[in-house]
């Protein structure tokens, strides 16, 4: 087993501060000093601080009064253990992207079993790079420690100057040189060890175990054994919930829907890990914007096929948000999955090492091969979703034939976000009943105009009719009774119109279509 410990030294602070990581936004000024404060008995101590505060000399463990003496303008946040747990669980969801075994350790560490993930990510180095890059991009500081023993990995992560140790022997050698102060022990035990002249871990490990336990307590003994991997603590694996439902509090209330993008990215990143771990894609998603003094704004999203790509989700949601006008400020966002479906496995190319279609002209080959392949189908679905996100779902549709003789009812629409059917279904069934080259086809297929007017328009005069009448009588059994004689009319410009008159009033003509 190989454990990666991800230590988040200031998770709550990172998520609460409007700090945007460098390179993401150049125009924002650096944030002012901010620190997280925790009540400990009667004293208030600094838990963690942001970069500006650290530069001014604030340290973790410092009393708040001392911190105020250094920076009078210091802003503080109260440590909230419930929120800390919630945020850490969100990180755990994200971490599922990298390992199937994620365990939450204490209040600020995630342990990932990565021996099984190395092959997937192409080795330790690419995996570490991706983990670090991922955290950096979402503005969360993370310290990484890698060791074959979970407790040691945590120790390395907290110390933050040891990159990774893969073998037990090497780990032992590295541990030997670690000063005793780095071990997470009681201050009382530390004092005892110091007074006994024990300075490094090597001295500690060399002591007879029975005496060690007697003199410094079982806590010290257990830690020693756990560090060396002689006894192991059972780590409960983090189980992802059935549905994704995560909340993120915004550091600043905002009316600007564009500024939601960065927090949204953080949530989508957790969603991505969640979906990935369960091999699912999302079909229906809901984004709720919580307001201080108004009911929440709910935005529903639906997708043609299961989606697990957070970049695509972000695009869709951003398109929708950009059209949204917020009247009251948003204080938090909640992302909830409403419907999940199994994700089609990505096709991994054995030789090129890339996923999906690649090549110099992927689109060109696509077009040439026809748009029947699953990958091309998915492209079409993504595109339709994107268009629908900006223009509105009702603005896009696929035409469909109604089973009706009334012209209005013969034109139906299929909502664009209905699942795509296989090609040619309609066409084939139609052609099966009407052979294309049969000479008598015109008997069965009357000429129809390409353009239909949504509502027939009354004509105040008698048009020039150039065809014989085609009678359409239909629907006497329901409300839309139709008894009409349809004609083709023509004007002096050569435009052909489809006009009709009601059977009972043959002089009144209506315009219903144009032969485009």
């Amino acid at each position, binding site marked *: 087993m190989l454990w990666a410990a991800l230590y988040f030294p200031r998770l709550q602070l990172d998520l609460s501060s409007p700090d945007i990581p460098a390179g993401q936004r150049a125009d924002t000024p650096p944030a002012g000093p901010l620190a997280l404060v925790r009540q400990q008995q009667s004293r208030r101590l600094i838990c963690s601080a942001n970069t500006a505060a650290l530069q001014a000399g604030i340290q973790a463990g410092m009393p708040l009064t001392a911190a105020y003496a250094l920076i009078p303008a210091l802003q503080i946040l109260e440590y909230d253990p419930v929120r800390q747990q919630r945020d850490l669980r969100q990180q755990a969801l994200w971490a599922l992207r990298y390992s199937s075994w994620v365990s939450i350790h204490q209040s600020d560490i995630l342990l990932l079993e990565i021996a099984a993930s190395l092959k997937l990510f192409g080795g330790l180095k690419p995996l570490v790079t991706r983990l670090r890059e991922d955290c950096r991009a979402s503005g969360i500081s993370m310290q990484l420690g890698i060791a074959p023993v979970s407790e040691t990995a945590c120790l390395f992560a907290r110390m933050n100057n040891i990159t990774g140790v893969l073998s037990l022997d090497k780990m032992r050698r590295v541990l030997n040189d670690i000063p005793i102060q780095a071990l997470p022990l009681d201050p009382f035990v530390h004092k005892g060890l110091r007074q006994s002249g024990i300075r490094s871990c090597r001295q500690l490990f060399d002591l007879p175990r029975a005496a060690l336990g007697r003199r410094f307590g079982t806590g010290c003994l257990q830690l020693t054994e756990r560090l060396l991997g002689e006894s192991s603590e059972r780590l409960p694996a983090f189980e992802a919930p059935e549905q994704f439902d995560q909340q993120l509090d915004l550091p600043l209330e905002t009316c600007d829907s564009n500024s939601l993008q960065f927090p949204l990215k953080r949530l989508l990143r957790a969603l991505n890990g969640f979906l990935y771990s369960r091999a699912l894609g999302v079909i229906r998603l809901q984004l709720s914007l919580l307001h201080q003094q108004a009911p929440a704004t709910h935005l529903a999203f639906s997708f043609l096929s299961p989606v697990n790509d957070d970049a695509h989700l972000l695009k869709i949601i951003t398109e929708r948000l950009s059209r949204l006008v917020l009247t009251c400020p948003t204080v938090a966002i909640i992302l909830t999955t409403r419907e999940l479906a199994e994700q089609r496995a990505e096709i991994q190319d054995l030789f090129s090492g890339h996923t999906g279609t690649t090549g110099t002209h992927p*689109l*060109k080959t*696509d*077009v040439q091969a026809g*748009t029947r392949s699953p990958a091309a189908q998915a*492209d*079409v679905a993504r*595109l*339709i979703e994107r*268009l629908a996100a*900006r*223009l509105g779902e009702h*603005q*896009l*549709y*696929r*035409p*469909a*034939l109604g089973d009706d003789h009334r012209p209005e009812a*013969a*034109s*139906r*629409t*299929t909502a*664009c976000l209905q699942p795509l059917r296989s*090609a040619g279904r*309609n*066409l084939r069934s*139609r052609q099966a009943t009407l052979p*294309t080259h049969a000479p008598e086809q*015109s008997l069965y*297929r*009357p*000429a*129809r*105009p*390409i*353009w*239909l007017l*949504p509502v027939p328009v009354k*004509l*105040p*005069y*008698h*048009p*020039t009719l*150039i*065809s014989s009448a085609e009678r359409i009588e239909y629907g006497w059994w329901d409300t839309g009774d139709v008894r009409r004689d349809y004609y083709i*009319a*023509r*004007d*002096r*410009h*050569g*435009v052909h*119109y489809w006009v009709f008159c009601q059977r009972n009033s043959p002089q009144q003509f209506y*315009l219903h279509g*144009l*032969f*485009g």
Partner: protein
Amino acid sequence: MSLEALLRAEPSLWRGEQQTFPHRIIPTGFRALDHALPGAGWQAGRLTELLPAHTGHGEFSLLLPALAALSRQGHWIALVHPPFIPYPPALLNAGIDLDRTLITRTDNDTDTLWAAEQLLRAGSFPAVICWLHKTSPRQQRRLQLAAEAGHCWAVAYRPFDQQADHSPAALRILIRQRPSYLELDIRKSRGGRLQQVTLPLSAFDEAQGVEWPVCNATASGTETAVRLHDQAAGLHPGG
């Protein structure tokens, strides 16, 4: 490598004679029109601009054989902001697969251009047809570039009275209706000759999948017919 080979390898260099067609050619379905167009058909990766004198005299039927051919190969077709409802029975008659036809309604030219550009750039829609009202050459150029990027056939319908405007389209055709034929006036053709093509109305029977029920199309200009046209002109969303 010889100079000739070097020149051939340069895709942005346009050669007047001995043209090569980097993109697919879609036969128009009309023999006379095929003869007049470079490459003998509509060219994908290019913007085709059609300026019909009116709506409703065969300006869309002109595209139907090509669209039906694409449809038969299982390709998607997109119509962006058509002037009226594309009537499904007529599309079916022409042989177009309704399940693979996407119709997009938009409220303004900006959205039309945006949607058309997205559709073209993605490359999953080999034919994208849009109806424009008032656009600048810069916006049209974006369409042309998107068509090149996605290797798609882009068609833009523009109002007839904009024929004098500059256009970056590779092909521009003015469409007029004459009593018994459709007159196509090729005003601009990259790599082709400017000429006029006439298509008899009977040529459209196959395109529309039905026989035109009017045997003797000899309607003359009458007063009522003029008024009929004026009435219809008022319906056009773009005027």
